[in-house]
């Protein structure tokens, strides 16, 4: 009995170590680990399939990097998250690489009959937004403030952890309306209708990208950031519906 346990234990050890070394070997063979805002899911993964991605709310990614997550590059949907890490010397100097705008989406069937942002105030509605710490959640609150619609926050039925969770709940018809980036409405355009938000109410949305200080592939990471800033990278973002880098922050 004792011997059999020992044998099992040895097998488990060997298996675990070979798994670990093969994972290590794969990492040597180049892919960078890119932590990116959920809204970049489609554009990043189709622009460069060779890298490994972790898409989530930028605030969650910030916390993970702060706790030592093995990221090489961090692309955030708001400057706050990159700047906080920069101040903590955990990422190199961030640069702005793209922009976006907010829209309101409703399910195609539009059960609550929402045809303008102001309908959110007039009609009973199950509104889904992202949490205040999530960039898109912050931008949503800015829009509501600018439009004098903060009372609408009382109609929020769920605060999601990233923009894709908001998109999913509306696309499934579970929620009546949700605030997402224009680029998130595109992949689900057969399931949702888009209600535009006037330009004067749009928040200043800036995406920032930075190389993680502790990355062991800093040269490759810097090259990848350059690639995103290059005409080719910018074209890919533009084609996905992202907006050019705002002039002031170039």
């Amino acid at each position: 009995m004792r011997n059999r346990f020992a044998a099992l234990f040895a097998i488990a050890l060997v298996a675990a170590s070979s798994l670990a070394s093969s994972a290590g070997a794969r990492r040597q063979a180049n892919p960078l680990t890119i932590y990116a805002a959920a809204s970049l899911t489609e554009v990043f993964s189709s622009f460069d399939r060779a890298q490994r991605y972790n898409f989530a709310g930028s605030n969650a990614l910030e916390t993970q990097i702060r706790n030592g997550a093995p990221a090489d590059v961090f692309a955030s949907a708001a400057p706050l998250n990159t700047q906080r890490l920069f101040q903590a010397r955990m990422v190199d100097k961030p640069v702005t690489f793209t922009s976006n705008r907010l829209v309101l989406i409703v399910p195609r069937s539009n059960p609550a009959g929402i045809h303008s942002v102001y309908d959110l105030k007039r009609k009973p509605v199950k509104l889904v937004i992202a949490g205040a710490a999530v960039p898109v959640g912050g931008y949503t609150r800015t829009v509501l403030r600018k439009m004098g619609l903060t009372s609408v926050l009382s109609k929020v039925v769920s605060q999601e952890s990233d923009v894709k969770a908001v998109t999913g709940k509306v696309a499934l018809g579970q929620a009546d309306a949700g605030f997402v980036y224009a680029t998130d409405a595109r992949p689900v355009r057969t399931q949702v209708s888009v209600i535009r938000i006037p330009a004067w109410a749009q928040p200043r949305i800036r995406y920032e990208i930075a190389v993680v200080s502790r990355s062991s592939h800093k040269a490759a990471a810097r090259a990848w950031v350059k690639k995103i800033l290059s005409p080719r990278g910018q074209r890919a973002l533009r084609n996905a519906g992202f907006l050019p880098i705002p002039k002031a922050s170039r």
Partner: protein
Amino acid sequence: MLVVTTGVALLFLVLPIVAVFLRVPLSDLLSALGSSAALDAIRVTAETIAFAMVLILVFGTPAAYWISSRRGAVRDVVVTLVELPLVLPPAVAGIGLLVAFGRAGLLGGTVDALGIDIAFTKVAVILAVTFVASPFFVRTAVAAFEAVDPTLPAAARTLGAGPGRVFFRVMLPLAKGGLGAGAALAFARGLGEFGATIMFAGSLQGVTQTLSLAIYEQFDVDLNVALAISALLIVVSAVVLLSVKLMTRWHSGSGSLILSAPSSRQRN
């Protein structure tokens, strides 16, 4: 060798639990438990799990009794169906609940017509918890009913007791240790429910945000609150597990009922 492997395994399992308590001083944990996010989550969790447990006990007990009295293919199919949520990933449970009871789901229209509003309400949380936790109760309850010496209900029947009387006066009292253990396990699982809830019910403080969901949200807002809620759940889970051990030891002289399959008949 055996001592070493056991030691390694034990250390691995215990370390994350101890770490939760060591990260910040205990006084910080206690004061973080007083935050509105934590207090709201405690209230939401208590309300929803109480309802879920009522549903699980009221529907699960007769179901377990029925299963325990059957043999053959029908029983196997029913047992498999009941146990399926046990092994399903919570994400599958969440998607399933959405497309079944969601507003655009299979029964969405019917539920709406009945005037019941499930989407993003506590009802959704209760459904999610009931779905994932009930197998833990039913499994254990079936084993508990089967562990009852079959000559006892038979004797009751020959003495003229009807099926209802046999169930309430003979089977329930004799199986109550196992039923209690099953209820405790379902409670513990329901307490930690996360995946199905966040997908099906969403997350809103004071309404649908249970303790597990609050940990997830507070993780990158206020780590102390996340740690405090984690510590609370560890304590509650430990108490539940201990009480299961005591209950099963007390009533059947064996603490391993938790892990036994429903077909543990051979034990008697």
